[in-house]
């Protein structure tokens, strides 16, 4: 059976888009942000692969086309930025200070938690860049002696967590302003959070795009400082 499935080169792609669309359908029915299509799709695909012992490599090869679209899709975020440029310019100080506050908090809280759990140096470095996009985070982790594969996984999951609970957190803690919501999504959960922010409001999406870029750059700059506090 498995051998037969391996011969179908389009199977991983159809499985991915199919489960994702199922997630979109479920979300429409249930109307809860917790039924996030990414989460539904990942759970279904991972369970399928775990049960059938389907090869991860075959899956990754089959979905290459999708990962190939990631950079172009991210580049397209320039369009909402351009459309909201006036509002962004007017609120630039507030956005930048918000992102900086979030970035410093991220590094400090991570260091604190890693101390609390007595994680070693390598583990801590791998977790430290978890709020920024994979392309930047994995480089920071690798250059400072972290485990790149772990960093990539943690970053993706962080993004999903942010996208999942972001709108609930906004409601509970009364973060109502679209600009504040955008900064929160972009700073805490990078591109994945931004894709969720884009669904909420065009301004939220644009602010989130700007914030994810700024958070990435600020993290890269502050990373050496955070590394001074690493456990031995």
């Amino acid at each position, binding site marked *: 059976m498995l051998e037969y499935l391996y011969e179908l080169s389009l199977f991983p792609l159809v499985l991915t888009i199919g489960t994702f669309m199922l997630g979109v359908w479920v979300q429409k029915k249930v109307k809860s942000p917790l039924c996030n299509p990414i989460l539904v799709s990942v759970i279904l695909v991972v369970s399928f692969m775990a049960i059938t012992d389907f090869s991860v490599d075959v899956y990754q090869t089959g979905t290459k086309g999708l990962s190939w679209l990631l950079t172009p899709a991210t580049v397209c975020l*320039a369009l909402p930025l351009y459309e909201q440029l006036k509002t962004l310019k007017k609120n630039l100080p*507030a956005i930048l200070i918000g992102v900086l506050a979030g970035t410093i908090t991220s590094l400090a809280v991570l260091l604190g938690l890693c101390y609390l759990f007595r994680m070693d140096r390598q583990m801590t470095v791998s977790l430290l860049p978890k709020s920024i*996009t994979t392309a930047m985070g994995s480089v920071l982790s690798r250059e400072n002696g972290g485990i790149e594969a772990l960093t990539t996984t943690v970053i993706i999951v962080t993004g999903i967590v942010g996208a999942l609970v972001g709108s609930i957190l906004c409601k509970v803690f009364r973060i109502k302003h679209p600009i504040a919501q955008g900064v929160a999504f972009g700073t805490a959960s990078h591109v994945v959070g931004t894709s969720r922010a884009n669904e909420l409001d065009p301004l939220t999406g644009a602010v989130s795009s700007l914030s994810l870029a700024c958070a990435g750059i600020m993290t890269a700059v502050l990373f050496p400082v955070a590394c001074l506090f690493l456990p031995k």
Partner: protein
Amino acid sequence: MKYLKQLLIILAFSLAGEALQALIPLPIPAAIYGIVLLLIALCTGVLKAQAISDTAHFLIGIMPLLFVAPAVNILKNWGVIAPNLVPICVVMVVSTFVVFLVSGIVTQLLVKKEGDRNA
């Protein structure tokens, strides 16, 4: 052909981003350079927004789908994660919550202050 043309323009900017990334020795991803280049082109009027808008909105719309495959890679990295599963999960969830709230609340306070001054 309209969509293909728009896709080609977007790909050209992405390619230029990759080219810059390869030239500049900073840990900045190609996509960030691409965003900056595309934004400059739009602001200076070299490129009209309509020239890419249909395809750009489609790509932005399907972005969540593009993260499914990277997330499935968890299976491959399970060996590194499993021994520390609980601490990693706690660290991830707690820090994401705190960062989300701090950045959101700080920004909201500042935006509101600005609004009050203007009012």
